[in-house]
């Protein structure tokens, strides 16, 4: 019997334990026992996590807003203007085959040349009327004229109301035809094209072959009388500097920057420098600018908040350990092992951190939504940033609790019970 002695006995004493559920229960009970202190402790973590979520959410929302402003149409528009130093000697900017030169580029969908022709003979001779000037007493309408290559109408996505658009047939034959914008047609009183109505530009008659209902770009064309570029050139001469000839290009989505860098060379390989090319701002660079400046600052502030929160939790937990020395002694006498004591304080600080994380995340999300609603924006919250936020709080609490928990586990039961 004696040979079996104490080793056998030792195995007969079942070790004490602390289940995870009990551990969390104890942590919650300890926190709820001092709710005010817990609330103040949580505040630091709460602010830190809320700041994190708000910063990430607001930058995402703002970036989303910037992207939204760049509709697909705006992002695919490139405008080429003549900016020759000496236009008089430089000659005509755009060769006749400009359209073909551009559409040959990979990434260009449509392109067209346009300008506002000046009718020789002053303002009177440019008035537009539905009747021959000789027959009418009242003056014509001062409608803007627009000379355009057929590609231009396609580039602005002109939608036909009645009739048709002019195409290369009309253009190449320099036919005297015109397409009216909806508003222009209304001003001239033309609604029906069955009788092949003509309008008089000054004294020059042109046949109206179509009325444009709507356009996606350059809405001013709705008030214009649009004639084929070649016709305009024959009637009123090549475009001068003050007539501002331009090329409008529609690119494929995402190709605008590339085309902008190639267009000038494609149009005039001999004089690429004479053009001023306007491309839409790259949404990415714009977003990055917003991101980098503000986000970094705010994230740094949020990080500082988290550190302060962690220090707060560490401090409170350490004070709690010293205050609750007698409780630690009691628990040791009830069978708690040193690691159970450490786990208890660790779980308390982790729960405090998680509470701060949860409330902070909620406040951060609420803040982002509130700002977005007040500005009529679409709130954008990336789950990748929102979902881990409460865990970041818990992790902060856990790290903050390491030292106090270690201290608590080192307290000798004899010492603790002396209190």
């Amino acid at each position, binding site marked *: *019997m*004696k040979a*079996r*002695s*104490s*080793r*056998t*006995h*030792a195995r*007969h*004493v*079942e*070790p*004490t*334990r*602390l289940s995870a*559920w*009990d551990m969390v229960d*104890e942590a919650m*009970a300890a926190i709820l*026992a*001092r709710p005010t202190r817990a609330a103040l402790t949580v505040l630091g973590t709460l602010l830190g996590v809320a700041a994190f979520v708000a910063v990430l959410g607001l930058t995402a929302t703002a970036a989303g807003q910037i992207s939204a402003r760049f509709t697909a149409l705006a992002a695919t528009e490139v405008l080429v203007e003549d900016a020759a130093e000496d236009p008089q000697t430089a000659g005509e900017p755009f060769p006749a085959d400009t359209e073909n030169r551009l559409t040959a580029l990979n990434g260009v969908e449509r392109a067209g040349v346009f300008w506002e022709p000046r009718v020789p003979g002053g303002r009177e001779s440019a008035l537009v009327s539905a009747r021959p000037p000789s027959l009418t007493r009242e003056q014509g309408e001062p409608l803007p004229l627009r000379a355009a290559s057929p590609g231009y109408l396609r580039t602005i996505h002109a939608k036909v109301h009645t009739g048709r658009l002019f195409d290369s047939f009309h253009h190449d034959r320099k036919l005297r035809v015109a397409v009216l914008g909806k508003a222009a047609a209304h001003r001239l009183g033309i609604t029906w094209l069955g009788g092949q109505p003509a309008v008089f530009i000054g004294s020059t008659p042109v046949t109206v072959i179509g009325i444009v209902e709507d356009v996606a770009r350059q809405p001013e064309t709705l008030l214009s009388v649009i004639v084929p570029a070649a016709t305009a050139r024959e009637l009123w001469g090549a475009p001068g500097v003050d007539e501002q000839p331009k090329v409008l290009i529609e690119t494929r989505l995402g190709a605008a920057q590339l085309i902008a860098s190639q267009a000038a060379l494609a149009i005039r390989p001999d004089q690429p420098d004479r053009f001023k090319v306007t491309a839409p701002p790259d949404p990415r660079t714009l977003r990055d600018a917003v991101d980098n400046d503000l986000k970094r600052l705010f994230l740094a502030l949020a990080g500082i908040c988290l550190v302060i929160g962690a220090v707060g939790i560490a401090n409170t937990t350490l004070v709690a350990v010293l205050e609750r020395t*007698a*409780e630690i*002694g*009691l*628990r*040791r*006498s*009830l*069978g*708690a*092992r*040193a690691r*159970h004591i450490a786990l208890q304080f660790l779980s308390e600080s982790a729960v405090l951190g998680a509470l701060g994380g949860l409330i902070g995340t909620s406040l951060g999300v609420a803040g982002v939504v509130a700002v977005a609603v007040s500005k009529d924006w679409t709130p954008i919250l990336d789950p990748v940033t929102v979902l881990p936020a409460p865990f970041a709080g818990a992790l902060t609490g856990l790290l903050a609790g390491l030292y106090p928990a270690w201290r608590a586990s080192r307290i000798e*039961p*004899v010492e603790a*019970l002396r*209190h």
Partner: protein
Amino acid sequence: MTVHEEAATPEETAASTPVIDFSGVRRTYPGPPPVAALKPADLVIGRGDYVTVVGPSGSGKSTFLNVAGLLDRPTGGVYRLDGIDTASLGERDRTALRGRRIGFVFQAFHLLSHRTAIENVMLSLLYTGTPRRRRRRLAMETLEQVGLVGRAHALAGQLSGGERQRVAIARALVNRPSLLLCDEPTGNLDTGTAQTVLALIDELHTAGFTVLVVTHDPGVAARGQRAVAIRDGILSESDPADLAMRVLQTGGDRT
């Protein structure tokens, strides 16, 4: 040395196995100069005994209590609790033995004031692996045993001193320990309340619990079946009847 029966749980431990078996147990605090707080002591406390250890402050009472309660390790000798040689145990097993076999009753109660009476009793079952559902029932049964069922859901901070000590006793009892170890159980109570608590301890002894009370008060010590005096770290058997006489002569000395 007696031959010990194998011990698994307190219930299975044979009645003949002493609960406490000190043989040459001593505790010396390292110096300089080293202090022999407990001189080599032999003491056997059998199952169902009611033993008191009495001595003035500084006599080595606390050292004896800490060693007996497995809160402190003796520097020499063999201490068997329920027949288990505690010297060979690691910290984990000592803690387990402490939690399962010893019920502590402290002078300062050591209740968690923001928890209810029943929650304080249930705390004792937290580390023993008792299923959660059983804890409340066991705690309530034990509160019934100490006559506090009506106050089960009162916060410990709102209980009177006597009630607090009875909750503490219930907490010590709920694990059905081999040994009820009371450290000055009436030290923070007035005389009337102290009597009710002592009466409760008497009852528990009658019910079969092994009770060890450490006190400086001969009046408390006189209630034991056996009284052990401690002075300058030396234990010596004394007669409870003598102590009772001394109490009568000095009029209930509570120095």
